[in-house]
């Protein structure tokens, strides 16, 4: 695995994702690629505008949505102070970025693979589908609240089978859970990969254990350093040990951690 680096790079492009991205706070940020050669899908980077003095203090972690030799793209949802400041950046602004970090999703070319994404959790699957040698083995199930155009859904449907489920009210949740279980059942003997909010990951994990599907989850724990040093991001493994989700994850086998 090539070494991660920490560098200051420029914002090449920053736009709301799709016509309704602005009102739903979903942005695509493209940065100069600081020379990262081998980004593996599911890995993430820590981003911190260089102009932030020390307030806020921490960088924020984001999945690498797309990596080309020239640029790194991130799909960012403005949910709090840090993401609001990040999505307010302008082209040409400088961002300190370190990565690529953490463990990636497994790529098993010959295996039918189900991608389960909740909201911005779709981000890593863009790179995953693009880098996969046999995308015909891939299926995406995407749960979302803002309109589909706010997400890079089409970047995936171009390559892989996909279906989307829009949640508009709490009553929709059991329906979505049923869809997840159905899709998982359909992938018995295959591989399931999930990225999204923790309640969603819990659902996926339960279904995977129940149905015996091999399954990886990408956790979204709060992080300060992103490199295993602060111990602020730990998950609990199946033996009750605390393991850093930044370095031992963010992608874990569903049966190896508790949620």
């Amino acid at each position: 695995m090539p070494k991660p680096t920490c560098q200051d790079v420029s914002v090449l492009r920053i736009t709301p994702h799709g016509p309704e991205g602005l009102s739903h706070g979903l942005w695509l940020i493209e940065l100069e690629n600081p020379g990262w050669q081998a980004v593996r899908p599911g890995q993430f980077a820590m981003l911190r505008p260089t102009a932030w003095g020390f307030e806020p203090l921490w960088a924020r972690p984001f999945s690498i949505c797309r990596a080309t030799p020239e640029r790194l793209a991130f799909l960012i949802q403005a949910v709090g102070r840090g993401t609001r400041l990040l999505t307010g950046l302008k082209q040409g602004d400088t961002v300190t970025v370190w990565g690529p970090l953490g463990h990636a999703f497994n790529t098993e070319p010959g295996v039918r693979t189900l991608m389960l994404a909740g909201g911005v959790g779709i981000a890593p699957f863009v790179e995953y589908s693009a880098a996969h040698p046999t995308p015909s083995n891939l299926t995406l199930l995407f749960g979302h609240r803002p309109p589909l155009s706010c997400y890079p859904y089409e970047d995936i449907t171009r390559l892989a089978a996909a279906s989307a489920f829009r949640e508009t009210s709490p009553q929709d949740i059991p329906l979505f859970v049923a869809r997840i279980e159905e899709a998982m059942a359909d992938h018995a003997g295959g591989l399931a990969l999930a990225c999204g909010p923790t309640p969603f990951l819990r659902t996926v994990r339960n279904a995977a254990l129940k149905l015996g599907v091999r399954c990886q989850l990408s956790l979204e724990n709060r992080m300060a350093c992103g490199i295993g040093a602060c111990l602020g991001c730990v998950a609990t493994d199946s033996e009750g040990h605390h393991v850093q989700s930044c370095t031992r994850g963010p992608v874990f086998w569903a049966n190896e951690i508790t949620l």
Partner: protein
Amino acid sequence: MDQSVSLAGLNLKNPVMTASGTFGYGLEFTPYGDLAALGGIVVKGLSLKPREGNPMPRIAETPSGMLNAIGLQNCGVERFLSDKLPRLPWKATPILANLYACDPDEFGELAGVLAAEEGVAALEVNISCPNVKEGGVLFGQDPSQAAKVTEAVKKRCGSKPVMVKLSPNVADIVGIARAVEAAGADCLSLINTLTGMAVDVRTRKPRLANVVGGLSGPAVKPVALRCVWQVSRAVNIPVVGMGGISSAMDVLEFILVGAHAVQVGTANFTRPDFAFRLVEELPQVAASMGVTDWESFRGSLDVG
């Protein structure tokens, strides 16, 4: 100018060390700079047995700072010595072990194990951790307890220098410092974190599972500078300053008020190459401020 500093028998290339708990076991930072370029590395607090630490959440951002309640999660001294220390450049730069234990005897035992290792240059005794139930900060709030721990460690440390790390959560930090000096400490480091708390009105829960945690980062720098100034004037052993250092100018501020060396903590989280960059910038910033040698600059604050 010559950046090196001699500290209780240790020779540091420069006055910038990394602070315990904010620099992992050092190895996490190898991709981002040359560990051997640092003045010293203080590793995450070690205990005799591995500890899982506190439940999550353990960290929270605060204005110009952060709270942590890691609870001294660590791999235990044995695994540190077998797996981590051999991979650290201990011949090129001093590695300091940070010790945590529940009573003076256990501190002594741990000190014995660590001091026997060639790769451990010195011991930093943490009598000031606010995030554990037993002992922790309580040792650091009572002069006689602090002295007892110091004595226990000194008895077992062989020729290795002992640095005692003080808590700012006291009315009179000078009293603790003097007690620890009298008990034989070779050096002091300060400050550890201030006890603080953060809550989430939406969920009505504390932001840390441990409820309270330790405040660090630029927010606490004024308190840290005051402590270092008070203590370094009151004792005859060297003082290592820390608390909110986030620039080369901050390093100079701590030396100006009396520190021999400094530790960089929370700022390591703002970018993993932070400490390496600081070491690179320091000579030029010092020169631009008219500093010609550490000796004459140290403690030269003009209080009129």
